[in-house]
């Protein structure tokens, strides 16, 4: 005889596996520290790329102005300003990335834990049904 409870459980597990579960399984295969640090490094890379592109665009657009007022001293100040701003931007994104990915890993771990719990519940049910049969 079909068990409604078991079918519901199987549907829930299957929906999870095919939806959020895919990503969760991937995320939880990493250690939290590894996952967070890897993604934070990726964030730094993307931020560097974005910063470089915006900076390049800025130099391209205001090349005339910069060249007209260019001295060794002004170039030095500009370089320092660029690095300071870059440092601040990277630091901000590091903090954001660290927080976001840490939370992401924790949540997916929680969901995976629940998934395994339900999976073992299903296994027990199946075993029980087999014994009864």
């Amino acid at each position, binding site marked *: 005889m079909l068990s409604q409870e078991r079918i519901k459980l199987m549907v829930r597990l299957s929906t999870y596996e095919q939806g959020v579960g895919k990503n969760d399984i991937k995320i939880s295969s990493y250690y939290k520290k590894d996952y967070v640090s890897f993604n934070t490094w990726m964030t730094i890379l*993307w931020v560097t*790329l*974005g910063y470089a592109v915006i900076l390049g*665009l800025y130099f*391209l657009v205001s090349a005339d102005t910069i060249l007209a007022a260019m001295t060794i001293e002004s170039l030095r100040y500009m370089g320092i300003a660029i690095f300071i701003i870059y440092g601040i931007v990277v630091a901000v994104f590091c903090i*954001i990335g660290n927080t976001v990915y840490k939370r992401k890993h924790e949540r997916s771990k929680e969901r995976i834990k629940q998934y395994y719990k339900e999976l073992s519940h299903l296994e027990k049910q199946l075993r029980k049904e087999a014994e009864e049969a």
Partner: protein
Amino acid sequence: MSTINERKIAIQRFYARNSLQCNIILRFVLGLIVFGSINANLGFLAPASSFLVTFGLAVVMAFLPLLIMVFAAVLLIIIQLYTLAIPIMAVTAIVFLVAFIVYARFTPNKCWVLLLVPIAFQFNIPFAIPVAFGLLGVPVMVVPAILGSVIYHLLHYIHLTEAEYAATGLADIVGGLASFINSALTNQTMWVYAIALSIGLLVVYALRTRSIDHNWKVATIAGVIVSFVIALVAGAILKVELRIGWMIFDVIIAILVGLILEVLFHQMDYKNTEFTQFEDEENYYYVKVVPKKFADVSVMPAAKRSGTQRLATGAGIGIAAAEAKKAQAQKPAEGASTQPRARSTNPNAHKSASNGRSNRKPGGRGAASSGRGKVKTSSVAARPNDKLVSAMKVTTSSAENQAAADLGATMVIDSEQAQRLAARKSAVMAKNAQSASRSSRPNSYGKSPSISSKEADRILLSRSLNKDLGLDQSDHNDR
């Protein structure tokens, strides 16, 4: 209001039955609006701008995740702008890159909200954005609100000045870039709306999360007014020409959007608000409990049906104790024999119940009080109708169990058992709600039932809990 509730329930049921089809239709409509708007405003590449392409894209995107739709929309914009002028395409691509780095990388599944902001601008209802995002989202939604505003105004500017940049080829790429950036990214209207939407969203979120009555209505109205005033003031300072008539229309629509969202997601019964106060060894609690409003009990989620949260938290147990106190005050004539009594190893348990306080641990903090924020309360919950006081200790570790036992807590249950009890409570409440709705009708003799449905709920629930806790009333009486 009941009609609105009934309609809401009808919509919920319809969606529950046909969620797959509904999602496809909604994605198709969204795709039609997004690709239609892009092709209508930036139709520089004739083959890509035809209705057939728009319709085809919308149909395909209806069966794909929203993330793909966002990428398809970005790609379509880039292709259209490439046809117009390369400098414009480059600047727009950089704006999209920034949007990806700042927002979409962190929440790829929610980057579709970026599409909603330009759509709201397209329909002249930008103030609906802070309302919707503030009511349903978090403060981080400020980022897509700003990015959406920038993207819309950038594309709108391109649409208005397309003839000016149409001739810009590779030869004058630097000149074209400089000219476009200076005029497009310094567009004052864009920044006026970005500021107004951001502050409005934060106001909506701040008020929505306060424990004031009708907080969603207050948040909606305040947020819209703040956005409107900021837009007017910033517009006056930056000398931006704003269309006041459209803005007033926008304000009205935004308030309507807020009210609709409230009906759909946040119906509260403020008339039956309860207040309670209790304390444990660490904190004082001042609790306000507002019940949710349901027109039809059968549609309630099982966990919400019975006030599971009340059972599982200290607040709930405090409320139960407060109820017991109230019931005692109402029934003084029943005397000592009808007083709620704890079947307890703790001689002071019933005192705690009548005081509306949790069991106190002598000597302050210890093993049982470690781990703040976990579901763990040692308290006595008194149920007036069946003369039962059940004491519970919801803990998560055996060390805490032992500590609780040392402190004289009546009954120690683990978190799993607590969850089971909560689930059982839900089931009993659901069953009772159905039977109560039947029994509240006059019976065949033309008389109403002698006990109220609320009392019936309490009795049946208490019996069920007693059974689970091994405190069956009949056993107790036998002994």
